[in-house]
């Protein structure tokens, strides 16, 4: 299975909608252990992405993703802006010049994006951040694909594991980001960034699912 430029544009547009729908939810999660702006921040960013979209239409996938990253960096602010921005820019780098993505491209992109986040934020799995949704998702994506079970199933499994990662963030204390100031008091609350990461992965899974039907 292969994703085209058009698919990528559709997915980005779907993500924008999902973020808009979940703006209040993500903000409420952030209110509990942060500063009540995660949904507001991402929504501002993806609204800007949507506005700039027409300018990307004739570009290759690498350029599109890099541009999305740059728009996010320059409009989201906070912690999630540079992190998601870096994520998309690094993904774009890996597929620079391409107009289609195969399974290997997708793994490579995700891998590069996640290491970008880790470099930028100096966090790791278990710190109660977006990484706790992304890292299990990436691992599951790779292992499902290596078993030859195809992209649709692999991304579905990845989204599942991202969700489990989100739930797991409830059980741990934050070590990075604003929630870390709460220490043990952050236990019991779900991480907003992990949640938004899951929502994005789930959006990809849903798209691929529809595509294959």
């Amino acid at each position, binding site marked *: 299975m292969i994703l085209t430029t058009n698919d990528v544009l559709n997915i980005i547009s779907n993500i924008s909608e999902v973020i808009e729908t979940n703006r209040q939810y993500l*903000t409420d999660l952030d*209110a*509990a*252990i*942060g*500063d*009540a*702006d995660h949904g*507001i*921040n991402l929504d*501002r960013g993806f609204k800007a992405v949507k506005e700039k979209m027409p300018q990307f239409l004739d570009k290759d996938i690498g350029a599109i993703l890099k541009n999305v990253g740059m728009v996010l*960096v*320059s*409009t*989201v*602010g*906070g*912690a*999630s*802006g*540079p*992190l998601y921005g870096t994520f998309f820019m690094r993904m774009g780098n890996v597929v620079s010049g391409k107009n289609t993505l195969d399974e290997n491209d997708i793994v490579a992109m995700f891998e590069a994006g996640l290491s970008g986040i880790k470099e*930028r*934020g100096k966090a790791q799995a278990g710190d109660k951040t977006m990484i706790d949704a992304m890292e299990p998702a990436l691992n599951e994506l790779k292992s499902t694909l290596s078993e030859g079970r195809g992209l649709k199933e692999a991304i579905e499994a990845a989204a599942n594991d991202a969700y489990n990662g989100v739930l797991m963030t409830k059980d741990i204390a934050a*070590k*990075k*980001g*604003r929630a*870390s*100031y*709460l*220490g043990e*008091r952050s236990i019991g609350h779900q991480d907003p960034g992990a949640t938004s990461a899951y929502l994005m992965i789930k959006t990809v899974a849903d798209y691929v699912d529809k595509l294959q039907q």
Partner: protein
Amino acid sequence: MKKLINNPDEVVKEMISGFLYAYPSYLRKLDNVDVVVRKTSPVDGKVGLVSGGGSGHEPAHAGYVGKGMLDAACLGAVFTSPTPDQIYEAIRAVDGGKGVLLIIKNYTGDVMNFEMAKEMAEMDGIKVLEVIVDDDVAVENSTYTQGRRGIAGTIFVHKIAGAKAEEGAELEEVKEVAEKVIKNLRSMGMAFTPCIVPAAGKPSFTLDEDEIEIGIGIHGEPGTHREKIKGAKEIVAELMDKIIIDLPFRDGDEVALMINGLGSTPLSELFIANKEVNEYLLGKNINVYKTYVGEYMTSLEMSGFSISLLKLDEELKSLLDASADTPAFKQFK
């Protein structure tokens, strides 16, 4: 949510507009980005000082742009770090040839955004250094975590680094004195009531009529723990015990003191806190050299306050005493 606003999503834009109307002789705004710089920027032969952060902390940081303090302030969305492109434009606008010092409060977001901007400016050949302020002793310090927050004590960094830069010092020297301030600076705060981010429309947490939140930051986030309300003397003692022991401040030390209101605590109450802090320090034979009482770094309409103590030496004293003329911080020498 009762606010004197027009539209929750336009708060920052409209606030900047009103700010510029108020201080045309001090400041101008850069085109297309929410960055405020000295009217006369760049100042030739002077190290440029850039700070900033989320909005909602007024008068921080734009109020500190002016003679003897900052050259530029970058204004993010409410409680949200400004973005790298804003900070990059600020750096470019204030570099007078001697390089630029970034004064960053230690939040994941702020640090990442400022560092991305630094990388961008360095690619242009501008010399950029940074200092990271982490004065809040409420949070345990640890290399495994993000570490401590930067809160109201940051104003002392602006003031003292600003005075040093105004003297014509080199970038490395300005950075060095800023780091000396940070090393000798400790703060802690508490809140009686939360605040409401305009776009969120409701408070981040709620407190009962007899509850207070100890160890609060400046972003409406909950603090380290909750207690039954108590008197000003007891509250001050709880904060001071943590502040004093941390550096530690000792018998015979000279300090600068800031009692910072978080938004809706009346000045009269801040003065009562100041009385308690002074009596506490008298008991420890720590000498207050200079005192600042007021709203220096707020958290929207939060009710509460923070205490900052800076241990002084002769250099810091003379830089602290230097004159400053900005919209929110004026001082005759």
